[in-house]
């Protein structure tokens, strides 16, 4: 488990599951979840994050620093058998208890760090990567951050640390969907040129289409020295025409039957 031959179909399937779950739960962050589906599907199903069948645990670490999008991992963890299917089924059903919630935490199997407040995950990933490097432990650390986390000073503090300590086992994936809650990053407070800024740390930055599975795979396999950074240009709400590139779909919105039908058709 769980190398799939048809990743595009799998991405569609996960989007379907997640959309139906959002409908049930009635809250969450669909825009941010759907923008990173191809990224996490490639990480897990192309074995970049290695799975140990004997322990039913992942060997490598992944931190979804943009904690509001951790939900994207739940169907994947369910597929690997790390999360009990009952937990998934119970979520959104008010009469049943579940460990799942909008923001991930370490009480959920497969979630390596509690997140929700932005700007923490990269530092935590640095701590793990530092330790594995020092102790020569063969584990990689993947940290998915939103470009919005580049507004947090602690992210830049962690980048300094990663550069100074040459954390070759650290992989930073920036989900660049260009939207934050109040609008585009360009309009609110410009972040660009992100690539140039990150390259200033001496890191190799692959600027790719974050929905192109081939480009993601190539970037993840790119053998480079030092910290690997993938700047993945994505579309917020990818896959759903009513949500794509709409800042207001950062959060789940009330949705009528017609819109539900449109969404279901979008992912047929």
């Amino acid at each position: 488990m769980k190398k799939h031959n048809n990743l595009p179909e799998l991405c569609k399937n996960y989007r379907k599951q997640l959309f139906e779950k959002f409908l049930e739960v009635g809250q969450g962050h669909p825009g941010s979840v759907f923008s990173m589906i191809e990224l996490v599907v490639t990480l897990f199903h192309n074995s970049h994050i290695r799975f140990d069948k004997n322990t039913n645990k992942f060997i490598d670490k992944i931190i979804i620093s943009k904690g509001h999008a951790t939900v994207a991992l739940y169907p994947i963890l369910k597929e690997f058998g790390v999360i009990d299917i009952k937990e998934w089924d119970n979520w959104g059903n008010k009469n049943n208890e579940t460990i799942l919630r909008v923001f991930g935490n370490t009480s959920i199997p497969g979630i390596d760090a509690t997140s929700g407040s932005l700007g923490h995950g990269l530092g935590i990933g640095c701590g793990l990567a530092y330790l594995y490097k020092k102790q020569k432990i063969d584990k990689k650390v993947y940290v998915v951050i939103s470009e919005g986390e580049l507004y947090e000073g602690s992210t830049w503090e962690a980048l300094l640390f990663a550069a100074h300590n040459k954390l070759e086992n650290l992989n930073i994936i920036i989900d660049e969907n260009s939207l934050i809650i109040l609008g585009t990053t360009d309009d609110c407070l410009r972040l660009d040129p992100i690539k140039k800024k990150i390259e200033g740390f001496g890191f190799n930055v692959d600027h790719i289409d974050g929905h192109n599975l081939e480009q993601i795979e190539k970037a993840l396999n790119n053998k480079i020295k030092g910290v690997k950074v993938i700047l993945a240009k994505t579309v917020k709400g990818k896959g759903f025409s009513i949500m794509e590139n709409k800042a207001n779909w950062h959060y789940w919105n009330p949705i009528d039957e017609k819109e539900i039908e449109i969404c279901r058709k979008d992912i047929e």
Partner: protein
Amino acid sequence: MIKLQRDIFLDEINSQLEKDKDIYVMSADFGAASLDITRDKYKDNFIHCGISEQAMFDIGTGLALEGKKVIAYAMGPFISLRAIEQIKCGPAMMNLPMTILSVGIGLGYADAGPTHYATEDYACLRAIGGTSIFTASDNKIAKQIAQNILNNKSVNYVRLDRHPTEELKEYENNYDFSDGFRIFGSHSKDKIAIISHGRILKNCIKSLKEMKDNVFIIDLFRSKPISNKFCETLKNVKTVLVVDEQTQYGNLTSAVQSELSKNNIFPKVKNLSLPDEYIFKNGGRDFLLNLHKLDEDSILNSCKELL
């Protein structure tokens, strides 16, 4: 020359590092003579995080997630308030043991001014779920905290003074460190119980000396969690005076009253602390303590008034 509390504490950690390589000491560019030994002799277990308190806690959280015993070290005002959300969302929320070593509490950096005062650190860290808080009144307590701290599986906030502190051993009775307090003088329900912690406690000694028939002192070196034995000690005591080098709201008085009321113990409680404002006047630490009635004569007068 009297050793500083930070050196006493770090000497003990260095001796533990000799056999326990799971200990990691992190600094946000704050030093000590004994930290130089850590950096030299145990360099694989020392991490300089830059002047980056927030990243220090996130990085430390990564280490602690892998079972390492992390000590994060920096100046009191910055290690407490600058990174409090990292403390909350990292080790506190994930139930990871981590020791926050905070130096320069109260008005320790008197000549620097209020940016450098840690006069509300206690209230802030006390509010973080599951923290244990220790405050050293002298080197003996600083050493005992260091000896025991890594066995404590919570987020530990250890408050040390910047200045040399007088040894208070001559006034103490026998005590068990795990109870979190020691008594100076003889305990009686009919006496005023002065409760304090840290360097300011020495300013209460004059009251003990001059009013020994009417006063005893409790050095509450572990003020969170407060032990049942502490509450038992205060059961039936009618008058309590709490002395703390912190601003008024959320200081040691609040902690003591909250714990006593939880146990249905309701003595008369007077709070002696700093005002709810930032202090820009200068004249040194003792001048400021004097100005705000936290010097030994003012404390003595408060005791007399309470009689």
